[in-house]
C-alpha cells in the first residue's frame, strides 16, 4: 500500500509540473508564432495589399481577431485548439487538423523506427564498452560513439543518398509509400531515413549506457555476485542491465525531443511527407495556423510522452522516484 501511495504521489507530482510546462509552452508558441510576426494579412492576400482596400484589410484583421489584445487572442486560439478546432490554412483550402492528421502518422513511424534502431544498437554498444572497460573494444566503441553523435543528420543523410541510392542503387533516394498500402515498400523507403535519424542517438545512448553500467559495476553487490560464483553473463546482463534499465529508459525519453527535431531535417532530405516537411513548407509560405498548431502539438506530444516514460522509469526503478522528488 505504501509503495502504491508513493508511486501515485510521484506520478501526480510529475503530472503537475508537466501541466505547468505545457501551459507555458502554449503561451510561448503563441507569442513567437503569432505576435512577434510580420502582419499575416499580407500572406493571406498573397502579398498584394495594394489591391485591397483599407476596409478589406480591417475586415480580415477583425476576422482573425488581430485587433484584440494578446490575452484575448491567446484565449480564442487555445480554446479552439482544446476543442479540436485548429483553424484553416492560409495557403491551401484545407483544415489545419486535416493536414496535420495526414502528416503525423508518417513522422510517428519514422521516429519510432529510428528509436528502435537507436535503442537496440545504442544499448548494445554501451554494454560492450562497459563489459570491456579500458580495453581495445571499449576504445573502439567509445570512438564510434563520438563519431556517431557528432555526424550531423543532414550530412549523413546526403552521404547515404549518395552512397546507397546513387553509387550503389540499393534504396530509393527519397519518397514515401503509406504503410497500409504496401508494408514492404513502406519499410524499404524508410530504411535510409530511419538510419539517418537514429545515428546520433545510437552514439548518445551508447555513451549513457556505458557510463551508467560502469557505475553499477563498481557497486559492492556486483562484486559479491561475482565472488559467489555467478557466471559473468548473469552478473553483467542479469544484474547490471537490470539495475540500469530504468535510467536508460528515462534517458531515451529525454532524448525524444531532439529525435523529433532531427526528424524535421531528415524528412527534408528524403522528401518524406511528414510533420517536418509540413512545418518547413508552412514556414517558407508563412502559413501561421499550421505553424502554431504544429509547434504546439509536437512539443506537447513530446512533453506528454516524456512524462509517461518518466513514470515508467519510476515503476521499473524505485530509486528514480526519490531522485525526481
Amino acid at each position, binding site marked *: 500500500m505504501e509503495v502504491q501511495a508513493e508511486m501515485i504521489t510521484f506520478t501526480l507530482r510529475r503530472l503537475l*509540473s508537466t501541466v*505547468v*510546462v*505545457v501551459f*507555458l*509552452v502554449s503561451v*510561448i*508558441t503563441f507569442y*513567437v*508564432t503569432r505576435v*512577434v*510576426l*510580420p502582419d499575416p494579412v499580407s500572406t493571406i492576400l498573397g502579398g498584394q495589399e495594394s489591391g485591397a482596400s483599407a476596409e478589406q484589410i480591417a475586415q480580415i484583421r477583425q476576422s482573425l481577431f488581430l485587433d484584440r489584445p494578446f490575452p484575448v487572442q491567446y484565449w480564442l486560439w487555445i480554446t479552439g485548439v482544446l476543442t479540436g478546432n485548429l483553424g484553416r490554412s492560409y495557403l491551401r483550402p484545407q483544415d489545419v487538423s486535416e493536414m496535420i492528421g495526414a502528416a503525423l502518422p508518417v513522422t510517428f513511424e519514422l521516429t519510432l523506427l529510428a528509436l528502435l534502431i537507436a535503442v537496440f544498437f545504442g544499448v548494445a554498444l554501451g554494454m560492450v564498452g562497459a563489459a570491456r572497460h579500458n580495453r581495445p573494444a571499449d576504445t573502439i566503441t567509445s570512438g564510434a560513439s*563520438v*563519431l556517431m*553523435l*557528432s*555526424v*550531423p*543528420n*543532414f*550530412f549523413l543523410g*546526403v*552521404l547515404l*543518398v*549518395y552512397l546507397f541510392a*546513387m553509387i550503389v542503387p540499393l534504396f530509393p533516394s527519397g519518397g514515401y509509400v503509406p504503410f497500409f498500402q504496401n508494408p514492404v515498400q513502406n519499410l524499404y523507403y524508410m530504411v535510409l531515413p530511419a538510419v539517418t535519424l537514429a545515428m546520433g542517438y545510437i552514439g548518445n545512448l551508447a555513451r549513457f549506457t556505458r557510463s551508467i553500467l560502469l557505475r553499477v559495476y563498481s557497486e559492492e553487490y556486483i562484486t559479491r555476485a561475482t565472488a559467489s560464483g555467478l557466471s559473468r553473463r548473469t552478473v553483467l546482463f542479469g544484474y547490471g542491465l537490470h539495475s540500469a534499465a530504468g535510467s536508460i529508459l528515462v534517458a531515451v525519453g529525454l532524448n525524444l*525531443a*531532439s529525435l*523529433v*527535431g*532531427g526528424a*524535421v*531535417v531528415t524528412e*527534408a*532530405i528524403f522528401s518524406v511527407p511528414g510533420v517536418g516537411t509540413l*512545418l*518547413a513548407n508552412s*514556414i*517558407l509560405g*508563412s502559413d501561421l495556423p499550421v*505553424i502554431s498548431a504544429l*509547434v504546439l502539438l*509536437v*512539443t506537447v506530444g*513530446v*512533453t506528454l510522452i516524456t512524462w509517461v516514460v518518466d513514470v515508467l522509469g519510476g515503476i521499473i526503478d524505485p530509486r528514480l522516484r526519490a531522485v525526481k522528488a
Partner: protein
Amino acid sequence: MTIPRTSAFLAIKVPVSKRGVLDFVWAYPRLTCGTALLALLVLMSVLAPVLAPYDPLQNNPNATLLPPSGEHWLGTDLLGRDVWSRVLYGGKDTLYIAVLSGVSATVIGVILGLIAGQRPGAVDTVIMRAMESVLAFPSLILALAISFALGSSFTSILIAVTVSSIPRTAMLVRGEVRALANRKFVDSARVSGASSTRIMMRHELPNMTEIITVQVALDTGQAIFISASLAFLGLGLPPPAPNWGGLLKDGYVFLANAPLQCLAPGALIFLALLAFNLIGDGLRDYFDPRTLSRQRIRR
C-alpha cells in the same frame, strides 16, 4: 573521491605544466585532437582570402554549373561562382555565429542559474519553469519558429540558435549553486558579511569554471548543428555570403553530378562538430580528478 573541486583544479595544473607537451598529448588525447582539428578549421577560414583561388561572390555567367576540374576543384554553382572558394570563405560565418551563440547562451544561462540558485522560492520557481518550458521544445523546432518570426538575418539566427541552449546551462548552474550553498567556505563568507553578489562572483562562480568551460564547448557544437540545420531548411543566413549549411543545401540538388559540392561543406560541419565534442569531452577529462589519478597510476 572527495577532493574538493578547487584543490583538484590546482592539483591538475601543476603536474601538467611540468610534464611538457608530449606528455600532455598522451594524457589528454581527446582534448589534443579536438583542439588541433578546431585550429585547422579556424586557420582554413582565416586564411580563406589567401587560399581561395577565386572571389566567392563573383558571378560568372560563362562558367555556370561546371563539373570539378583542375581550375575549379569543386566545380561552379548556378551563378558560376567557384564552390571551393565559397567553402573556404563559408567557415567564417559558420564558426563566428556558433562561437558567438555558444558564449552568449552560456553567459545568459550562468546568470539565470546563479540567480535561481541564490533565490529559492518565487524567483527560482519562475526561472526554472520558464527554462523547463523552453527545454520542452525540440531545439530545432524552436529555432525554426524564432527565426521565422524574426525574419532572415544574422541577429535573428543568432537569437534562434542561442535561446534553445540557455536552459541546460541555467539548470546545471542552479544545481551547482545549490550544492555549493551548503559548503563551509560559502557559509563562512556569508557569516563574515559578504553580500550575495560577492558570494556569487567570488566564491561560487570560480568553483564552476570547469562545468562552464565544458558547457561553452558543447553549446558551440550545438549552435553549429542548429544553424546549419536552419540553413538546410532554407532559413539560414541571407545570401550571397557563403556558409557551410547553405552550401550543403545548394549542392544537394546536384548530388548526382557534383557530389563534392554538397559533401565537402557537410564534411566540414561534421569535423567542426566533432572538434567541439572532443574538446568538451577532453575538458571533462582534464578537470576530472579521477582521470588524473588514473593517468598517474598508469605511468
